Structures are given as structure tokens and as C-alpha cells.
């Protein structure tokens, strides 16, 4: 395992493009170190990026919030800018892992690790966040809904890295989505089901984690609710949900439980949105 500590972002991008084989970027390391302990890494090149100031911090411009790739979960939830312009994100990140892990785990790391249960992704999906992917020669801005292509698969090329996460301000500061994470305990749990939900004007944005190969928007449910804003039929809603999710049974939970809990919270969120 060869470790690199580049001096700046251009050098980092250069390393990504010139090193052969698999490269892993290390910022917080909360996921990476578990893989190392399990013996799942051997000849990957590790590029350490946590010390690069250009990748760190929360910024705001007229249309969006910009979160640098190495900003930690605690820094984001404690950020005065996030509290003011995207309180939903600040509040929801309280449920992320535990304080000592949130203190060094990063948002970009949670996204790039590509877990089906990634806590932050459903939150970012309803905010329609965008990822800034950079290589030596290219910069792409990819909506987070288009980032994943399969289980642990993303559109990120070998020579690219996530340098920032952008959150559009017009939505983030206006609407307060609801979020629930169901696990075996409150703290330090891996979600069996996660659901983020928001009704705005006559539309919906709904996203779920732990119910598919990667967290995704529930477009069929959204469409059903937009067409039937008042007269919701439970079995039709369930049919729409089943078109959006493919829960599995594993050591953490079983598929029937996951589907039912997601459905129950969906109904609960719809009811509370309709009474507001």
C-alpha cells in the first residue's frame, strides 16, 4: 500500500491521472480503516487529502451552498451558514454515527463510499444537491440522483474526485423536509430504513436509503401523490412504493419489515404535510 501526501489540489489531480490501478482518497478514514482492518485492501494507492485547505469548509454564494470535500459531518451540522440557510441538513446530521465519528468523517466520503445505507444521501437527494467532480482536464457537475449506477458503482472516473457538494439555495432555505432514520438503537446505528420527505407547493420530493442498491428518489410515489393530492388510496400508494424500492433481507433486517416501515412513515409524513 503506497501512500501519497500531495501539496495541493493540482498535484492531487495529477496523481489521480498518472497513477495506474485503483486509487483511494483518504480524508476522514472512518470507512477506509475498516476495510484495511478486514484485509480488503492490498495494492491500492492511498492519496491523503485532509490537509488541503482548498477542499475544506462551507461557503455560500448567491444561488448555492458549497461544501468542500473534506468538511466533516460535525463541521457541517455546526456551521452557522448551514444552520441559517439549510437548517434541515444541520438538524438531520445529528443522527449521523456518533459525535466522535462525525468529528472526522466527511460528507464527500459518505457519498463516495457508496453504501446503500449512506445516511447523508437521502437528505441530499431531496435537496437536489450536485457533486463537483474534477480531474486534471475536466470539471463536471453531476446531480446526486445521477451519481450512482449500481451497488457500490458510480459515474466517478478513475482520474476524478469529488471536490465539493453544492446545494441549491432557493429550495434549501425555503422548505423544511422531514427525515427519519430507523435502526436498532438511536446512536451509532446503521439504518434499516431512511426516508426523507418534503411537500412543496403541489409537488413532492421523497428519497429513501437502505431500500435499494443505492439511496434513490421515489419517483413513482412522488408522481402518485402529485396526481392524487387528497384521495390517497393505501394500496395504490403501496403499489407505487413497490415500483420504487427493492428491499432485501440481511442480518440487519428483513425486506417485509423494511417495506412496511417505509410505507408507515410515508403515510405519516403525507398526513403531517397535508395538515400543515
Amino acid at each position, binding site marked *: *500500500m503506497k*501512500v501519497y*501526501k500531495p501539496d495541493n489540489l493540482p498535484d492531487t489531480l495529477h496523481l489521480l491521472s498518472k497513477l495506474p490501478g485503483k486509487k483511494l482518497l*483518504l480524508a*476522514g*478514514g*472512518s470507512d477506509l*480503516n*475498516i476495510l*484495511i*482492518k478486514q484485509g480488503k485492501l492490498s495494492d491500492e494507492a*492511498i492519496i*491523503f487529502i*485532509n*490537509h488541503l485547505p482548498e477542499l475544506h469548509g462551507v461557503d455560500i454564494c448567491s444561488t448555492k451552498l458549497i461544501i468542500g470535500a473534506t468538511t466533516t459531518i*460535525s463541521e457541517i451540522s455546526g456551521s452557522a451558514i448551514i444552520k441559517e440557510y439549510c437548517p434541515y441538513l444541520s438538524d438531520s446530521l*445529528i443522527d449521523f*454515527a*456518533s*459525535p*466522535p*465519528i462525525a*468529528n*472526522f468523517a466527511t460528507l464527500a466520503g459518505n457519498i463516495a463510499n457508496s453504501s446503500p445505507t449512506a445516511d447523508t444521501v437521502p437528505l441530499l437527494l431531496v435537496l437536489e444537491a450536485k457533486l463537483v467532480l474534477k480531474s486534471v482536464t475536466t470539471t463536471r457537475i453531476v446531480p446526486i440522483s445521477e451519481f450512482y449506477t449500481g451497488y457500490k458503482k458510480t459515474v466517478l472516473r478513475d482520474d476524478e474526485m469529488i471536490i465539493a457538494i453544492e446545494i441549491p439555495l432557493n429550495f434549501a432555505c425555503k422548505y423544511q423536509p422531514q427525515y427519519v432514520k430507523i435502526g436498532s438503537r*438511536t*446512536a*451509532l446505528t446503521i439504518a434499516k430504513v431512511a426516508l426523507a420527505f418534503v411537500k412543496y407547493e403541489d409537488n413532492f420530493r421523497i428519497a429513501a436509503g437502505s431500500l435499494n442498491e443505492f439511496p434513490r428518489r421515489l419517483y413513482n410515489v412522488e408522481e402518485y401523490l402529485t396526481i392524487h393530492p387528497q384521495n390517497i388510496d393505501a394500496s395504490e400508494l403501496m403499489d407505487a412504493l413497490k415500483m420504487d424500492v427493492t428491499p432485501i433481507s440481511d442480518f440487519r433486517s428483513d425486506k417485509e419489515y423494511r417495506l412496511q416501515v417505509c410505507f408507515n412513515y410515508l403515510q405519516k409524513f403525507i398526513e403531517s404535510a397535508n395538515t400543515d
Partner: protein
Amino acid sequence: MIINFHLNGKETSIDTDPMRRLLDVLREDYKLISVKESCGEGECGACTVLLNDIPVTSCLINIIQVDGGSVITAEGISETPLGKLITDCYEETNAVQCGFCFPGFLVTSYHYLNNDPDIDEDKIKWSLSGNICRCTGYRKIIDAVQLACHKLGDQEQKHESI
């Protein structure tokens, strides 16, 4: 790779594999054995230390991440007046049984009391939620932190009246 950092207030330098876990370097190279390994996956908090004054699980931190920073372990904290006060409070409420988790709780409690010594139980529970104890249950641990809040408040009052 040469890693330079402050350890319990003193400058130090070590030439080692940059991917070694901070936990292993502290225990094996510096013989700071308050830093315990239990789960090795960041869940139990027995290996908690302060990195740049913030609690982290040292089993998930690589030594390269510490370069240029500062690390404080339970050994360092127990030398401070606040560390001594916390230890006394844990003793007074019988919050320590086997003692394996205590260094981690000491580090987390120290950070909590040093930054925002609020007696609110939910706040204390949240801030200690990364530390697991399998002996006592958590009631006495929460009592210890609340007692420390009271004692800190008393000290402040005395200070003000002087």
C-alpha cells in the same frame, strides 16, 4: 514517513508507516495504554482521544492524519484540574466498574465539560453516545457528569464572589 505532532502537550516526532492506526502508535510506541481497543470499528469509544481538541475514535484514524496536529489522551487529561474533578465525580457516583471504558468516557466527558458544561440530561447522553459501557448501565455515568457540572458551577460562583 516522519510525523510531527504534539502529544499531551509535548512536541514529538515519529518515523513510521503513515497508515498505522493512531491507536496502535499510542499504545505500542508511546506506551499510552489508557487508549483501549475493543471493537476496532469506532463503535465502542474505548479508544477515544482528543485530536486538535475534538474527540475521535483513534482506531479509525491513521497516524498521517495527526501530522502537524495535537493529540491528548486520558493520561494527559488526568493531569489537569478538570480531569481530576471528573475522575473524582465518577468515583463518587460509582460510575466505574471494570474500568475498561473509563479512559474513553473521561476524554469525552472532559471535552463536554470543557466546552459546554450543561446539566441537561439529553445533551449529556448525546455527547456520550459514542461511548459504550457494558458494566454499569449509564445512569451513574450521567450522574457523574451532572455532578461535575454542579461542581464546576460552584467553583465559578466561588471565583465570582472572590
